[in-house]
């Protein structure tokens, strides 16, 4: 009833923590058995270790939050030798989120990390507000995004999903270019670029000034974009943005997503993912669906 089959991913359920909101799983493993999860999108990995941005790195907003972590991660080697092996004890396929400043960085991480036993798919993070390429984020230029996708596809041992930025005029054309370049799937959306200013200091709260807006505040934007893109491409979409409960999951599936990631809500309630998974069968039943697959794209099919 909850199973979904996607390129590289045989999911026992469609729920997975979103990248950056779950580290490499160690901390949440103290809270529950990670084998319950459909998958895990691990934190963005770069070639070398990164410390990230100065603090403050987060700020609360109305119904959401801003973050400018800046891709802090221990670097490819540590992820390969410590983090991924740690996750092997759980019966859960990993989606490795990869990032970089240059095409070369992505390619190097993709080649290596895609050979790990439990990495079943890659998620190309071309939409992090802090990754620039010639002044333009990879994810806001269809040509740049497509070329990167093509190059990563060449070296990856596992299917490649590309994570789209919502900070664009026309997300459909970017999605199509990425599909044409050979991506196996899309994940969307990354955060919206936002800012908060502290009235006392008169400066932006985040040391980085701007940050990525996530949480339920952005769900309507995410649903709209999934709905648009799902009707324009033939590859599956993993939807995200503001999911808090099983009803939200169904909304993403109806909009055209085939699975759903949960980010910010993990901070509100560390048990949110297992809770959603538990609530899904009843919620499907309540709205008259036989299975997850039965919901997918239901708003336009």
């Amino acid at each position, binding site marked *: 009833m909850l199973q979904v089959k996607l390129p590289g991913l045989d999911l026992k359920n469609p729920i997975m923590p979103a990248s950056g909101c779950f*580290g490499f799983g160690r901390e949440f493993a103290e809270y529950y058995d990670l084998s319950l999860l459909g998958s895990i999108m691990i934190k963005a990995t770069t070639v070398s270790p990164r410390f990230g941005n100065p603090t403050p790195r987060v700020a609360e907003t109305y119904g959401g*939050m801003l973050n400018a972590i800046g891709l802090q991660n221990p670097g490819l080697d540590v992820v390969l030798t410590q983090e991924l092996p740690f996750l092997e004890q759980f019966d859960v396929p990993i989606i490795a989120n990869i990032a970089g400043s240059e095409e070369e960085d992505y390619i190097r991480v993709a080649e290596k990390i895609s050979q790990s036993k439990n990495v079943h798919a890659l998620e190309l993070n071309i939409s992090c507000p802090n990754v620039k390429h010639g002044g333009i984020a990879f994810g806001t230029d269809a040509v740049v995004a497509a070329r990167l996708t093509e190059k990563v596809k060449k070296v990856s041992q596992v299917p490649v999903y590309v994570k789209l930025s919502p900070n664009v005029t026309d997300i459909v054309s970017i999605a199509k270019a990425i599909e044409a370049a050979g991506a196996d799937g899309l994940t969307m959306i990354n955060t919206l670029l936002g800012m908060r200013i502290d009235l006392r200091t008169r400066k932006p709260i985040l040391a980085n000034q701007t940050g990525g807006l996530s949480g339920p505040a952005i769900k309507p934007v995410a649903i709209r974009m999934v709905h648009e893109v799902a009707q324009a491409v033939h590859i599956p979409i993993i939807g995200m943005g503001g999911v808090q409960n099983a009803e939200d999951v169904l909304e993403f599936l109806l909009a055209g997503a085939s699975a759903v990631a949960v980010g910010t809500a993990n*901070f509100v309630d*560390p*048990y949110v993912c297992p809770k959603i998974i538990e609530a899904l069968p009843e919620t499907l039943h309540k709205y008259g669906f036989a299975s997850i697959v039965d919901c997918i794209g239901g708003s336009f099919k």
Partner: protein
Amino acid sequence: MKKVEDMHLVQKKWLTPQIVQMTLKGGLVLQMNRPGQFVHLRVPDGSTLLRRPISIHAIDQEELIFDVIFRIEGKGTKLLSKLTVGDTIHVMGPLGNGFPVSVPQVQSGNTACLIGGGIGTPPLYELSKQLKQKGMQVIHILGFGSEKECILEDAFTKLGQTLISTVDGSKGTHGFVTDILKDKDIQADIYYSCGPVPMFSALEALNLPAPVYVSYEERMACGMGACYACVCKNKNQEGYKRICKEGPVFQAGEVEI
């Protein structure tokens, strides 16, 4: 093991017009033992997603209760302060590593000096209790803006000598906690501190003769080490620490703030 709980607010007391003490009851208290750890409180309104980190002030495992003391800063603490006896609060914790109480300096007969600034004083109370139980002498040096903001004097006095400074001189020594440390030439085998960052810098400048442990604050999201929101760099060495996980207490000079 329990990690979160809907706990019951069983007592509520205003210490000043801006500072409230709340007693919460529930099984989660059985996990609480280290002074200086904190809890992550859900604010009772859907527009406010992130939890609020608040230090544990006092623990009573027999009664299954613990206390927090917090000051109204913004929206979250304002909403929390409006809860009334009988309401529940969703609590996550205890989180972080607290003040070290198993270091060599902590032993019967030794002296500990606890230095608190403003709303940083509450977590020192459980610490003082535990140090006293271990047979230590405890001296408390507490600094406030003015007499009106002064809290917990009686509670600390019951545990040991308690010296107070106020910035405006309306109570105790006129000046800062560091003025007391200098003027009274207080010597201890270990120092613990919680308060605003400028106070820590002033303490550091004193070059105290024994280890100093300091509790830091940073804006947090997860509170459990997963999101990297609250990271600070190690001083004089590679790597970093998460204030919510490896902290909030560090030895002075250990991290860059």
